[in-house]
């Protein structure tokens, strides 16, 4: 694993985000939605709090994720640049991690906008930082596990739209499976509840950082990246 090469891939892919209108549109939508919720909550509760902002906006990642992950590999394959990456002295892990890093960095830019709200809060009052940190961690982990799933889906097809639909499908499943688990019985029901994203986010939103929930998200990330590598490996046949 060569960090310079991972970074080289990441830099290139970050560049792609800012070379197309899509990157800016996604950023704008994110700023608008989070800004709207922050303003609304301040207006209604007369309390500056980040928690409802995070709770209410995490769902937009269901839509944003496919948009920012679909091209990660599909486009390389379609345009023939995959051949350059595959035949260069790079390992598949370097490629996959570089791409993953790129989308996470893009997310970092998105998230940096929320610092404005944080500053407003701190100017207006004396917020309890515990829940704020818990929210950031949970929000970040959820988004980052979505991206890993999106990257994996992108390795499955050279068609960006197909990749996007697969991503959306998987995320939607993980989103609603908890409700289904509620009505199912026994081990299967428990399993469905465990897989559900919601259940693992709740504690973070309360400000509690529970390692078992961290483990859940980190597992999703690792498994998705691992299978991305495996899919790329299998393509040579």
């Amino acid at each position, binding site marked *: 694993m060569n960090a*310079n*090469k991972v970074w*080289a*891939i990441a*830099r*290139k892919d970050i*560049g*792609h985000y800012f*070379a*197309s209108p899509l990157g800016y549109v996604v950023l704008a939508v994110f700023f608008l939605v989070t800004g709207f919720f922050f303003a609304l909550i301040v207006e209604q509760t007369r309390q500056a709090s980040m928690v409802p902002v995070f709770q209410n906006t995490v769902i937009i990642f269901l839509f944003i994720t496919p948009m920012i992950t679909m091209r990660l590999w599909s486009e390389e394959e379609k*345009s*023939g*640049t*995959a*051949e*350059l*990456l*595959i*035949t*260069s*002295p*790079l*390992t598949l892990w370097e490629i996959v991690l570089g791409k993953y890093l790129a989308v996470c960095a893009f997310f970092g830019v998105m998230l940096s906008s929320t610092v404005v709200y944080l500053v407003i809060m701190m100017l207006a009052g004396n917020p309890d930082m515990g829940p704020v940190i818990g929210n950031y961690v949970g929000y970040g982990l959820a988004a980052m596990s979505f991206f890993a799933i999106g990257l994996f889906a992108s390795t499955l097809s050279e068609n960006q739209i197909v990749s996007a639909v697969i991503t959306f499908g998987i995320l939607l499943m993980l989103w609603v499976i908890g409700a289904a688990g509620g009505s199912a019985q026994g081990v299967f029901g428990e399993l469905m509840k465990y897989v559900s994203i919601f259940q693992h986010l709740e504690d973070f939103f309360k400000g509690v950082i529970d390692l078992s929930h961290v483990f859940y998200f980190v597992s999703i990330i690792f498994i998705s990246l691992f299978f991305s590598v495996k899919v790329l490996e299998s393509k*040579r*046949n």
Partner: protein
Amino acid sequence: MIEVKDLVKNYGNFAAVDHVTFSVPEGTILGLLGPNGAGKTTTMRVLTTSLAMTSGKVTVGGYDVVDQPHDVRKRIGYLPEVPPIYGDMDVISYLKFVADIKDIAPDKKTNRIGEVLEMLDLENMSRRLIGHLSLGYRQRVGLAQALLHDPDVLILDEPTRGLDPKQILEIRKLIKSLKGKKTIILSTHILPEVSSTCDDVVIIDQGKVVAADSVENLSQRLAGGKTLEMEVKGPSADIEKALGKVEGVVTIKLAGKELRGVSRFELTTDGSTETREAIFQCVVKNKWVLYQINPLGMSLEDVFLKLTTKETTG
């Protein structure tokens, strides 16, 4: 330097590459020649580790493409069929990216990029978005990418595709200038490309090698003076009949009547000198006049067409 032994690549039941064997000695240029769908690109993709083979053994610089792909990748420069470029990057940023993933030392990067830009006459385009470049310039950016890390082995899939005639000559000159320094395989449908740049040629058709030799030998061996053209003065029917009986003559055909009773014939023979002598004797014995007798050479183009065109009749 490059050894390909019994290479097979199947897509389902279809053999895209079928027991192909050839080798490229260090410092030489091999032309991979074949019609569309012959399996040139497939062969190159196996050599560059981008595609797994069905069976066979391929080594590049002594490294096995299956067992030591990483070592192979470090040593090759590859221009795929479609140049692997990013339309939203400018030429310089693209080459910087390539330098990063190809292990070029950071302090050598800028110098080397400058050299390659000059080599491919791309200096004026260095700040342009690749997506805004014309086809020929994109191809050159693709070539720049392959040459950037100064690899020992170059694998170029139709390197002159999309270039204008002047550029074609310049790229060929560039490739020729690498002779002796690099081991090169290039694929093409264009025959003059092979005769002007390559040392050896492998002709493949439908996944199989139909001929492999040095460029010189191949045109000679297959042409081999087997077809003769001759002009004789005399009654053409009698001549045709008599010469047809000469030992060693396989076929004879009246190719045209000239003025003053001179007829032109095309003969295929076994190629030996005795046959030519016998033909001469036969003409003299019958008191006809031999105006001329020439072996009809085959150009590489004829060889190529002959080898790769299936007889539809007979």
